[in-house]
């Protein structure tokens, strides 16, 4: 059997069952020298304008080339404006960064989607969309949400700029193996509850450091039942649980999604690739270092109340009271979060007024997210007090949404329909909250000031965001479902 190693020990033949995490790791080891971490080969390196400039400068200083431009791909997403692309970029610092990025890609022979490309988009959206991300690969990017690509059964993780330089120069990284952490989700989700609620629930239970040193593997019937886009939403936020990567074993859902995409294998190569990919799922009896079970049928829509993604509650539950926390540093941390958010404890967030709704980011800006939001907004008007921004993850998603008439639904409801980019997820491009404002956001981070200095973020699903846009207050979407 492929992927299963037999060892003879004390005369007994034992089968070494492996997880998908180990399998992908093992297949990419270039060298294992004593006294050094393993040298791991990288199959796909994605680059964007924010975390790469200093790496390219490093290459120039050392007189190095990019070893494998054919395994490297660039896009502009973080600091790019989401207004009309025919207008100039007002922020000169951002413009310089984007111009420098395009120059770096051209100088080093790396293909990329610039601001005017019809395929431009958020790095973690375009990888899967173009078929660059494939099962069994190692994928890295100078961005912590690289975990997204794990939805295809790739070992995908974020790296710093020094490591971006290492991969550009050598296509390799020095790595020590992570522990394995099985997140098993069984049962059927109820109406109004989705992938975002699964991952927010996980993080609220294990905390944002709960997966430190680990790679998650999401298993179970509820995961199998999800579409690729929903799986990406889950893997995307693995890092918010402290895990550098989160993987889902590939299956027919994966192959159906990939088939026919631009960079996916074709013809006989496709058949060979699928045969190889079918060897990836974890072997029966494979051991994990840690495990948690989630009952999908018991989940409610989730929302965060605090200043890290682990501070999440079911939407009908009350905000916790710092006085009920024993550990002094933990108590202070929670108290500080509630002061920043200016929220009382002991009450649910339901009915709390909001100023902004942001539907977008690499967590929830794919076509199915936009369809879900449009379903709620259709034939309704957003509350006049609320500014609603809908930012597709890529220009292709934008085109698709327009072909389906979703843009009209958003505009008729009074929402702002924008160009693709990270936008208010990170507030680098001018799309931002004003100090003191509250948003319901489909993005992944609610850190202090993440969406603009002094801004306050409630993280939730596209359904919850759309429902709250209509009422102008934090709303349980189930009250609006026919």
């Amino acid at each position: 059997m492929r992927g299963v190693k037999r060892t003879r020990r004390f005369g007994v033949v034992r089968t070494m069952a492996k997880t998908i995490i180990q399998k992908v790791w093992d297949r990419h080891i270039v060298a294992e020298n004593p006294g050094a971490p393993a040298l791991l080969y990288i199959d796909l390196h994605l680059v964007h304008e924010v975390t790469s400039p200093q790496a390219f400068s490093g290459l120039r200083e050392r007189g190095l080339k990019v070893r494998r431009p054919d395994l490297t791909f660039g896009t502009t997403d973080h600091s790019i404006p989401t207004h009309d692309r025919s207008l100039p970029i007002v922020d000169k610092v951002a413009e310089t960064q984007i111009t420098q990025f395009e120059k770096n890609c051209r100088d080093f022979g790396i293909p990329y989607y610039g601001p005017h490309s019809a395929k431009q988009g958020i790095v973690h959206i375009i990888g899967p969309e173009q078929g660059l991300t494939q099962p069994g690969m190692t994928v890295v990017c100078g961005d912590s949400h690289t975990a997204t690509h794990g939805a295809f059964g790739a070992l995908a993780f974020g790296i710093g700029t020094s490591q971006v330089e290492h991969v550009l120069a050598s296509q390799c990284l020095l790595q020590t193996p992570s522990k394995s952490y099985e997140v098993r989700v069984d049962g059927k989700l109820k109406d109004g509850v989705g992938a975002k609620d699964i991952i927010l629930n996980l993080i609220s239970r294990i905390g944002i450091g709960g997966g430190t040193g680990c790679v998650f593997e999401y298993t179970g019937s509820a995961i199998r039942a999800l579409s690729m886009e929903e799986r990406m939403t889950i893997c995307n936020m693995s890092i918010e649980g402290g895990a550098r990567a989160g993987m889902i074993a590939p299956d027919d859902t994966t192959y159906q999604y990939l088939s026919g995409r631009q960079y996916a294998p074709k013809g006989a190569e496709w058949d060979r690739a699928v045969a190889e990919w079918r060897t990836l799922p974890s072997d029966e009896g494979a051991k994990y270092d840690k495990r948690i079970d989630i009952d999908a049928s018991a989940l409610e829509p989730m929302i965060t109340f605090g200043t890290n993604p682990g501070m999440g509650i079911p939407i009908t539950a009350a905000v916790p009271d710092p006085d009920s926390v024993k550990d002094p540093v933990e108590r202070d941390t929670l108290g500080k979060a509630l002061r920043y958010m200016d929220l009382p404890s002991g009450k649910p967030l339901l009915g709390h007024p909001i100023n902004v709704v942001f539907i977008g980011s690499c967590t929830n800006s794919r076509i199915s997210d936009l369809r879900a939001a449009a379903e709620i907004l259709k034939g309704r008007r957003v509350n006049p007090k609320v500014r609603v921004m809908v930012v597709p993850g890529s220009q292709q998603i934008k085109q698709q949404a327009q072909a389906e008439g979703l843009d009209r639904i958003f505009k008729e409801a009074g929402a702002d329909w924008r160009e693709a980019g990270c936008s208010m997820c990170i507030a680098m491009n001018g799309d931002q909250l004003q100090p003191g404002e509250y948003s319901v956001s489909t993005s992944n981070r609610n850190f202090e000031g993440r969406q603009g200095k002094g801004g306050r973020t409630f993280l939730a699903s596209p359904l919850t965001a759309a429902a709250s846009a209509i009422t102008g207050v934090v709303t349980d979407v189930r009250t609006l479902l026919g």
Partner: protein
Amino acid sequence: MEKFTTFTSRLAPLAIDNIDTDQIIPARFLKTISKAGLGDQLFYDWRYDAAGNPKPDFLLNRPEGRQAQVLLAGDNFGCGSSREHAPWALTQYGFRAVISTSFADIFRGNALKNSLLPIVIPAEEHKKLLAAVAANPAATVTVDLAQQKLTLPDGTSVTFPVDSFAKECMLQGVDELGYILKQDVAISAFEKKRPLTINTLSAA
């Protein structure tokens, strides 16, 4: 990179759990294409008021804070984004080590590559250290990387774990890329037997 040598320093306590990289260096400062000037932007939104003036009561704006080469932080320091601007900002400010009960994975790796030592100590010792600094803000610790030893203000010491390869790099003042590039033969051999599944240069 400079060689990492043993040093004794005061501590700057920031006893908050889960300090994320958006706090260490807010995203709007990431539009730079160089590494320069990040030290002034360290903890910007905690350190400066709305008008951009330094808050006089924030430790890092005070002379005592300026003297500290060791940051004493709460659990899970450096979580969130992978931005290496975080250790760049910390080292440019003058920090050479951060003490916590745990670090986020990506931050730890980034710190080690910039000669910023992440020191993990047990929760009990961490509590004691916080109490010692509260009692005497001028208390010092000695950081000895070669021995992986942290000497506390009361003279006792704790050992801390460090990846042995990163440790050697820091002690010798060399970065990892030199080592990786020396593996060229192994990399080429791996590439020869590896089937190509994508070619990003084909019809982009």
